[in-house]
């Protein structure tokens, strides 16, 4: 049964969610943020895992989950108090459960005694006797005096009446402002209503008159109300319709024969009064149109009642799982759409004005919708960073145990959403940073006490949206970076020359150099040869920035600033000479055309711009990329751009061509990483333009002495020009 395999897959997907709930809940309980509901939620999750595992035959999982669940049940019914020890046991149990799920998913059979210690600890909590859960699977509770209750169909409602109703609205009914729908609803309120609609008289759409009722109904009403009450429903329309209400002696059509409880036979095409009309009234009707119009429209839509009967609604679900591939395909299509729309815009602009006027208007709408479409698709791909954060408490716990340190992890902003591809790629760097923090940052309890800190170290992990990016901060209150040690190490490894004078900040940032690791001894936690350089690489690969601040003896803060999406972004199209580039809007602060008097020559720079009392270095894009500028020095536009936290500079370009959504196309696969270029995109005119990496540009400019054009590495220049 291949569908069985598929269901297993679904089950394990659910397990991941459930395990997350378990982890989250237990963490809350540990932090004493938990309420009764928290325990309940954890219990429910474990219970669900157990239930599913039973169905799919993962016995070891069932066994463990059962013991776990029993303890949780005791806690939620106040038979067991929550103490720090208990919570630790529960957290470990959560870990074991997660391991068992992972093993089951991989198709491994967990060792017989896997998680035995934990299980025994749980059993000890409850004084559960071992093997108590070994009742036979799927068996009834034999000791329970339960007798199944056979379903006895209603003979007849005690004081029930059954009326046969035939209702045919007359020509005047709608015109007088009556609405058959309301009448039927009222009728239904009296009891069980089974109606079939006769739509035979509905003419073709073109001949429909909106104030004519074409549909009539016949059926039965089973109710305790008397005839007068039923007739009362039709009071207002009795003159304008053919109505017959006949009481039947008994109700064979509705009540089931006692020996054959078959479901209620369907009389013709039953009309479900509630959901149908809502779908029937198309938004063609102006809001201020008189009532009967709507009804007329409704009649028209009723023309094919048979179809409504054919498809009963299936699952009632508010969410649905969609394969990522499908969403990615939509994302790609939206990308292409953005390009096509930009091209269209270009073509329209080249048309004579009397033609382009209206086109432009419509195009504006298309642009608007495309943007919304993009946003919706992106939000579909968005995932809370909590998905990654969730894994960290366990990591910290395990590391703390291994290193004999006391560490508390505080998390905030778990619900901050970001594109899921970024969430995925965040796991490794984050794990590494946290590992470093516990292993190198947080001191041993004794050392902490000696330096006047509390025994327990704290790591704060937070996420928030800031200016079109998501910023993730990992902050610990450990020892921070020791500049002397870092410098010594860097010199030993030949990463800096012996006589180099470096500021503390520069020294701190040396830990991002390839091949750097300061742990005196390589522990089995961090220092496996994967250093912070890899972390930085990973973050840069997804268009992010990493920055580090350290205060010796007080702790260290690492900040990751990441783009929200990897597929489409807002960009400013600019021109230098004959080349076109795109500057990410997220990196731009402002644009200006500074008067010559505001630009100051300063030795060792290409000029400084005085902006509101602040001096900013100017980087000439043309020079940096070896593209001949067509503007004189006095001309051109300066873009004030950001290159990392608190660093701003002026990027001088020839011209701004316009703001546009651009689709990011990676060039790394084809060309490798090119300094200063983040990616490429396709513009409206079909040409390729490079998306600039402002941070890198700034670094390049800072590391290169101001030199005449041509000094830039030739392969990049050739590439930049060759396009």
């Amino acid at each position, binding site marked *: 049964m291949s569908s069985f395999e598929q269901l297993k897959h679904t089950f394990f997907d659910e397990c991941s969610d459930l395990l997350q709930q378990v982890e989250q809940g237990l963490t809350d309980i540990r932090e004493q943020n938990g309420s009764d509901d928290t325990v309940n939620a954890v219990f429910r999750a474990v219970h669900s895992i157990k239930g599913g595992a039973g169905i799919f035959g993962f016995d070891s999982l069932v066994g463990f989950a059962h013991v776990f669940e029993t303890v949780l049940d005791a806690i939620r019914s106040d038979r067991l108090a929550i103490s720090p020890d208990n919570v630790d046991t529960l957290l470990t149990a959560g870990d074991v459960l997660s391991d068992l799920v992972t093993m089951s998913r991989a198709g491994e059979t967990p060792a017989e005694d896997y998680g035995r210690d934990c299980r025994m600890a749980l059993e000890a909590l409850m004084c559960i006797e071992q093997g108590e859960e070994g009742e036979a699977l799927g068996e009834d509770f034999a000791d329970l005096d339960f007798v199944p209750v056979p379903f006895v169909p209603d003979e007849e409602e005690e004081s029930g009446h059954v009326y046969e109703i035939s209702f045919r609205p007359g020509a005047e009914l709608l015109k007088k402002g009556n609405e058959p729908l309301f009448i039927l609803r009222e009728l239904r309120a009296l009891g069980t209503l089974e109606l079939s609609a006769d739509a035979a008289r509905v003419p073709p759409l073109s001949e429909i008159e909106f104030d004519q009722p074409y549909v009539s109904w016949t059926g039965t009403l089973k109710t305790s109300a008397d005839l007068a009450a039923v007739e009362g429903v039709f009071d207002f329309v009795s003159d304008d319709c053919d109505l017959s209400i006949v009481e039947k002696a008994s109700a064979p059509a509705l009540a089931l024969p006692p020996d054959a409880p078959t479901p209620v036979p369907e009389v013709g095409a039953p009309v479900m009064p509630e959901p149908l009309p809502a779908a029937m009234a198309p938004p063609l009707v102006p809001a201020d149109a008189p009532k009967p119009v709507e009804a007329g429209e409704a009649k028209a839509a009723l023309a094919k009642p048979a179809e409504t009967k054919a498809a009963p609604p299936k*699952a009632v679900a508010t969410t649905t799982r969609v394969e990522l591939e499908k969403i990615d395909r939509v994302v790609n299509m939206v990308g292409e759409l953005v390009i096509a729309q930009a091209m269209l815009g270009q073509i329209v602009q080249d048309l004579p004005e009397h033609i382009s006027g209206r086109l432009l208007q419509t195009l504006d709408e298309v642009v608007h919708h495309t943007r919304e479409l993009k946003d919706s698709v992106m939000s579909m791909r968005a995932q809370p960073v909590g998905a990654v954060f969730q894994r960290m408490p366990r990591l910290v716990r395990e590391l703390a145990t291994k290193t004999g340190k006391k560490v508390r992890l505080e998390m905030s902003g778990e619900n901050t959403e970001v594109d899921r591809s970024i969430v995925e790629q965040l796991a490794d760097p984050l794990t590494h940073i946290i590992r470093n923090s516990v292993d190198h940052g947080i001191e041993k309890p004794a050392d902490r006490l000696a330096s006047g800190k509390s025994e327990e170290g704290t790591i704060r992990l937070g996420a928030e949206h800031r200016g079109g990016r998501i910023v993730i901060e990992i902050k610990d209150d450990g020892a921070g970076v020791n500049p002397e040690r870092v410098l010594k190490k860097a010199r030993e490894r030949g990463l800096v020359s012996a006589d180099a004078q470096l500021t503390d900040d520069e020294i701190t940032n040396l830990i991002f150099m390839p091949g750097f690791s300061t742990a005196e001894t390589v522990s089995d936690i961090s220092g496996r040869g994967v250093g912070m350089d890899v972390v930085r690489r990973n973050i840069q690969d997804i268009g992010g920035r990493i920055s580090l601040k350290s205060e010796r003896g007080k702790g260290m803060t690492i900040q990751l600033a990441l783009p929200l999406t990897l597929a489409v972004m807002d960009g400013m199209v600019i021109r230098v000479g004959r080349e076109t580039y795109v500057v990410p809007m997220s990196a731009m602060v402002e644009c200006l055309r500074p008067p010559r008097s505001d630009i100051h020559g300063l030795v060792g720079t290409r000029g400084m711009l005085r902006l509101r009392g602040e001096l900013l270095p100017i980087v000439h894009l043309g020079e940096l990329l070896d593209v001949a500028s067509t503007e004189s020095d006095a001309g051109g536009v300066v873009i004030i751009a950001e290159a990392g936290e608190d660093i701003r500079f002026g990027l001088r370009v020839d011209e701004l061509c316009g703001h546009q959504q651009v689709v990011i196309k990676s060039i790394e696969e084809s060309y490798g990483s090119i300094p200063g270029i983040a990616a490429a995109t396709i513009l409206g005119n079909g040409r390729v333009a490079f998306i600039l990496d402002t941070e890198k540009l700034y670094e390049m400019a800072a590391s290169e002495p101001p030199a005449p054009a041509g000094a830039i590495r030739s392969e990049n220049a050739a590439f930049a020009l060759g396009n």
Partner: protein
Amino acid sequence: MPIASTLKVLIVDDQNSVRQMTRLTLEELGIRQIYEAENGKSAFQTATLQPVDLIISDFNMPEMDGLGLLRAVRGHQAIRKLPFILLTGRGDRELVVKAAQAGVNNYLVKPFTTPILREKIEQVLGKLT
């Protein structure tokens, strides 16, 4: 005698995998008209809006649990006699007692096999054909 293919069954469970497994098992019994709901609340809505012949509901669910659903059904004039089978886990003995008091027709311990499911349904509705 109920005809399996005309029987309308509503499965209520918050876990999609369990719903689908139950659906598969019901389909093996020849039951074709199967509705699903994720929790008691939406199940109750479904049961009041369209004809359903049998509810098979899990206990543990957010929003409204199986017992809540059972009580809601029993308290609703039009569907108060609707046959109701409660899914339980082993160990949920007390739950079965409560459900019996609330008027459940039968219970079914997870995990279950096709024959057991048939037996439980037939105990309530009569022999399936």
